[in-house]
């Protein structure tokens, strides 16, 4: 027990002193997760909105599949991306394995279904309200998608948040495709896993605290922005 207390002390010291290694790991983590979420939003939002408006046979099954993909196991996605990017894989020539780019790709694959599925739900609800008016104005489906995404912007923040939470917290995919290489692909979650297994709890705990703080801060900021905007926009 005193060991753990001591570890907390060291962890706190690392955070307060702005330890450079810790800082580097935090920044790389943020860079990767935010890039992955941005990429996922860019793909997932139009796809989700299109699925909300489209009517075709098999649509119901596709919606179920998309919802199921919100729970993709990170290690399986990591393995899949690993196979694609490994030297012998179809995309091996790109030489991306064990780079931050590979980690962004893997996390995007994890986050895209989350954003797409939540967007689908939001846009579908909004379209139920807007449909007659938009049709009356002569708005086609292709034009309705950006309109509905913009009008659903506050609700869609929640989808982005959920995606960010997933990306920031997962370890399975990034450790497989990133390799947890010191100063190159080491992020908060992989470092916590590594340091804990080595029995060096201080850095692990410090990073754990930072990770929690970041997730809470990001959520709080967006909540404040969302409710302020809602109040202003009605």
């Amino acid at each position, binding site marked *: 027990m005193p060991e753990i207390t001591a570890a907390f002390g060291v962890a706190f010291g690392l955070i307060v002193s702005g330890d450079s290694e810790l800082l580097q790991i935090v920044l790389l983590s943020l860079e990767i997760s935010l890039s992955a979420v941005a990429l996922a939003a860019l793909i997932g939002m139009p796809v989700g909105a299109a699925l909300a408006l489209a009517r075709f046979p098999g649509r119901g099954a596709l919606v179920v599949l998309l919802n199921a993909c919100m729970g993709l196991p990170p290690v399986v996605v990591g393995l899949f991306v690993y196979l694609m990017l490994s030297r012998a894989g179809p995309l091996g020539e790109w030489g991306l394995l064990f780079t931050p780019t590979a980690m962004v790709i893997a996390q995007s694959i994890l986050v895209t279904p989350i954003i797409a599925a939540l967007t689908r739900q939001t846009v579908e609800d909004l379209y139920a*309200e*807007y449909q*007659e*008016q938009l*049709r*009356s*104005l*002569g*708005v086609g489906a292709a*034009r309705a998608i950006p*309109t509905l995404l*913009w*009008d659903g*912007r506050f609700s869609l923040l929640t989808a982005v948040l959920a995606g960010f939470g997933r990306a920031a917290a997962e370890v399975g995919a990034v450790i497989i495709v990133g390799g947890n290489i010191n100063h190159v692909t080491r992020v908060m979650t992989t470092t916590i896993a590594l340091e804990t297994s080595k029995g060096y709890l201080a850095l692990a705990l410090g990073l754990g605290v930072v990770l929690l703080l970041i997730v809470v801060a990001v959520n709080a900021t967006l909540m404040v922005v969302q409710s302020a905007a809602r109040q*202003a*926009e*009605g």
Partner: protein
Amino acid sequence: MPASALRIHEQPVVEGSPRADDGPLPLRLDRVCFEAGGQRLIHDLTLTFEAGVRTVVLGPNGAGKSLLLRLCHGLLRPTAGTIRWAWDDPARVRRQQAFVFQRPVLLRRSASANVAYALAIAGIPRPARQERVRAALEQVGLGHLAARPARVLSGGEQQRLALARAWALGPKVLFLDEPTANLDPAATRAIEAVIAAMHEEGVKIVMTTHDLGQARRHADEIVFLHKGRLIEHADAARFFMRPGTPEARAFVAGELLA
């Protein structure tokens, strides 16, 4: 509401004579039926809407008033019968119509952006939009609220904004589905003034209401529906003086129809 604001639409209004330009009218409905969920909601409606006269569709709840408007506007397809405009090109006909719903559907952006959006969809080039938006908001007395987010406007203001959006499009035909239901008398007066101004401009008005007072104020002719059937289609003055059917007599007398 300055009268000069009325002048942005091209066609001149010729008083007292048949309009030089009836647009896509007349609109002819021939034995139109509409079914949903295995129930026939509109029965064999045969009816013609002419330019120039204000048509008020009257009837108790569930008479099919809203359905009739939606069928005319093309939001619903009849399950039997035909709906024909004088023009053959559906896209051209669509551009000459606007629809104001009972509950205004406004986009989550400013009042002026709501009007500008409709103009953009209608293919109005960007430089021309600004002036039209301004004139439309002035027309309904919302000029001072142009920058306000549409969703924070009051119910009456929202409906006026919906009217401004319709007016900005310069339609030949305006459908209004219970435009003043749930509004207080002041808001109702403001809405009715805009409708009257649009009529003066030569816009064909087709409006549903279950408010007899509103029908008396604004109808040139009455289409009286009951249980999805056309009961009477008559000159408004005649309809209110001497209703031709027991149902219409009861309705005008303010009785509840079974």
